[in-house]
């Protein structure tokens, strides 16, 4: 069940009405949301609901053991047991085929590989996300960030809560579980903000992302040989806008839906293409993943506490594994490696303390040049991220130098590309102002305005709904 569908709308409206009706009865309310989450997941494939349930239950059980243990070595043992099972699950579903094919191909270079039948398990939707939720629960329990003993119902809902189940944002147990424990003040519900997030998310996904995908990005990345430099460049920019609008659109809808149900999700994007450095970029792009990697991988590896060389190695390892998390393919590893390299190079560059350079760095022109340079470095990474093979990725780079007209640069495409990229420079006060303004409208009018906005999006968007890019991860 995809967000921009009538099925999801009907499902969500029903859940919203029932959930608010049950709001006084906390445990029933949570049990209902859990059942709705399993129903949501079961729409895709019921066969994997037991896996979701099993991982949630197991991580909840282990988290309780960690919390109950007094000796630190016992805590650690439970933590290791919990994390190992989570990673083994992720590894089995996501990386079995990748590991075997890589191994057999390497073997095949020297001798005929053994004739063993291999097949990969069907990848459960959102497995990377719910496994990371489970690990976050274990990590937060181990670090003592959870003030109260975790309840199994809360854990089940935390891992499976449907707005974030398929593609995040990745919630921290220490931030979300207290929301389930406390009875929130309904007066603080920001309905208008939720609506703006949902409408904005739908606009980004249905119009910008889908149009760019079908009419610009897919044709060029499928057969880059057929396009000249301008079209190739447009397709690369197009993918940068598409993936941002696709993923941030999804998370905006997720955050908005959760908000309407009375729960707060963390912000996942903050105008990433306005970043001026790789470090800045990762503070703005997929924030819930980058902070997860920082807290549960980079810092445990030693972070920046063990000298410069170790810092660089830790950065590279974190980004390489972050790349592999996205997909079981070497192109994703290269994408992660490129970003690791950007971070290392930037750290080295930032250490240069030459005074004239320091003065230049403070100028607006320098910041804009940095933005532009970083945007293109990020785009270079997107080529590997999007291409289905290295051959296509390198062909894309080659085609940039081939003269040719911009055959795909139609008015509608240029308009949505502009909106996708330049929209990030929209001042936050505009949205806040609109939110305040909407607060003065009668509720019936606000509902009607929401319907009109969604209707307009349906009107302008291409037919059919492409799955969100991050669903595959």
């Amino acid at each position: 069940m995809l967000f921009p569908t009538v099925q999801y709308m009907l499902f969500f409206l029903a859940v919203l009405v029932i959930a608010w009706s049950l709001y006084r009865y906390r445990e029933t309310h949570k049990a209902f949301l859990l059942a709705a989450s399993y129903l949501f997941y079961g729409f895709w494939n019921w066969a994997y609901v037991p896996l979701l349930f099993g991982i949630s239950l197991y991580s909840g059980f282990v988290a309780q053991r960690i919390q109950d243990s007094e000796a630190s070595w016992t805590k650690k043992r439970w933590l290791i047991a919990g994390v190992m099972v989570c990673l083994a699950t992720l590894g089995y579903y996501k990386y079995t085929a990748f590991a075997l094919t890589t191994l057999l191909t390497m073997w095949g270079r020297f001798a005929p590989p053994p004739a063993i039948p291999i097949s990969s398990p069907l990848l459960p939707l959102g497995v990377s996300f719910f496994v990371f939720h489970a690990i976050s629960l274990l990590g937060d329990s181990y670090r003592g960030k959870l003030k109260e003993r975790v309840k199994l119902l809360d854990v089940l809902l935390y891992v499976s809560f449907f707005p974030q189940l398929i593609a995040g944002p990745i919630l921290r147990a220490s931030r979300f579980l207290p929301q389930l424990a406390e009875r929130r003040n309904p007066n603080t519900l920001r309905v208008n903000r939720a609506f703006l997030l949902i409408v904005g998310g739908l606009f980004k996904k249905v119009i910008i992302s889908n149009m760019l995908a079908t009419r610009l990005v897919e044709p060029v990345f499928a057969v880059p040989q057929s396009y000249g430099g301008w079209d190739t460049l447009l397709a690369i920019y197009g993918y940068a806008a598409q993936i941002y609008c696709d993923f941030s659109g999804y998370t905006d809808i997720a955050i908005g839906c959760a908000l309407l149900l009375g729960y707060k999700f963390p912000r996942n994007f903050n105008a990433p293409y306005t970043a001026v450095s790789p470090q800045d970029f990762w503070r703005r792009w997929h924030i819930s993943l980058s902070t997860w990697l920082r807290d549960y991988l980079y810092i445990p590896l030693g972070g920046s506490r063990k000298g410069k060389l170790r810092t660089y190695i830790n950065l590279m390892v974190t980004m390489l594994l972050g790349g592999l998390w996205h997909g079981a393919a070497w192109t994703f590893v290269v994408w992660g490696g490129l970003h690791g390299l950007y971070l290392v190079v930037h750290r080295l560059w930032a250490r240069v303390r030459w005074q004239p350079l320091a003065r230049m760095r403070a100028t607006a022109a320098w910041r804009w040049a940095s933005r532009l340079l970083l945007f293109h470095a990020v785009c270079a990474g997107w080529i590997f991220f999007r291409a289905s093979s290295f051959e296509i990725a390198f062909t894309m780079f080659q085609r940039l130098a081939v003269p040719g007209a911009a055959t795909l640069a139609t008015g509608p495409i240029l308009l949505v590309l502009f909106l996708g990229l330049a929209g990030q420079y929209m001042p936050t006060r505009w949205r806040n102002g609109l939110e305040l303004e909407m607060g003065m409208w009668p509720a019936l009018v606000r509902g009607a305005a929401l319907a009109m906005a969604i209707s307009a999006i349906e009107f302008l968007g291409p037919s059919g709904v492409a799955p969100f890019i991050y669903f595959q991860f």
Partner: protein
Amino acid sequence: MRDRGLIQTTRQLFLLLAGFAIAGVLLESGGLANWAQGLEIGPLRTVAVPVTQAVQSAVQPLGLGAIRKGTLENLARVGWSDDSALTARVNNEESAGAGESATASKETQRADTHGPTPVKTPKHSEHALGAATPLAADVPVTMELPQLPEAEPGKPRVVALAGDSMMAVGLSAELLRQAAGDKNLHFVKAYRSGTGLARPEVFNWMEQYPAMIGSAKPDVVIVAIGANDGQGFVVDGKVLKCGSDEWRAVYQQRLADYLAMVEADGARVVWMALPPMRIPVYNAKIAMINRIAYTVVSQNPQATWWNPVRYIGDASGRFREFTTLSDGKTIRVRATDGIHLSDEGAGLVTPMLLKWLDPPTPMQQASAPAATQESVHATEAPTHEDGGGARQPQGRGHSKGQPQPDGGL
């Protein structure tokens, strides 16, 4: 205090939802009715269709449907719409309008050089519910392709790639990549994912195909379609269960109509068999659709049944996810969904099609490596060593390796 807040918040939310529902129904009654029509046959559709149709009838007098239609047409005029049939219709109307005030000769010139060719929209035959013609017992594993007539010198052979996601995912991109730079071939894209022949009320290929090919006159049409068709549909208010005799009769007719449409103007048609699927239940449906398609295609002299299962499947024609090439590389043949071909899997079969579409000249054959010269011609029965061919495409190919004879892994 909080309880009062809860009541107030709940009241506000419900009022808001009421506003949303009223405005939504007024604005989207047509869209909701279309959505209900497109649902899979089942309890939800049974409830949704009459409800949405009743709502649509109630809202119709307000005339909002006409505004919606007009706006969609205007969007198509400015190139916003991705609906090929609507865009073609709007353009046709425009060119017809322009023609009224222009001389006949000017109109002819415009149509030839700039304007769209008016699109004739064929229609499905009337389907009388009855028994289907007997189906072929099984579909042959054949890759024999009839020799094509010589292409006119200096004129590329026009090849339409038609179908659903079985063509859109993997296969079309691989064909286009391998043929990139080949001046003897010109490809026309006439495929759309998530479509099929079973539900014309959801996506009508009889309207969309002519719009997609536009003024092109394909010499050859390669068709890969049917993966979404294993579902029931409604004819004359009667629900036909997938696989029933009546369902087969109607589906067979729809398939025959589609075939007749794509082979209009003398195009040769290559109908690709659907490959074996990963999930057994789905596989059974695919096998049935293949039998229906083969029954129709085998009765049509212009169409050729092409079943490259020996390359895609294992030695006994069953689903195979990975294979090892003769160069030792292990590749994924099928996409992770177990339905579509992966790019590399498509790369196993596309060289044969391209060699058939644009046979190598004697000079190319002479300059080709000895190993590839020995490979059999595409019109002959395949062996697992075959597939590379003498063709040297500019795009990427799989000339480095071919699948192992016994199915590899």
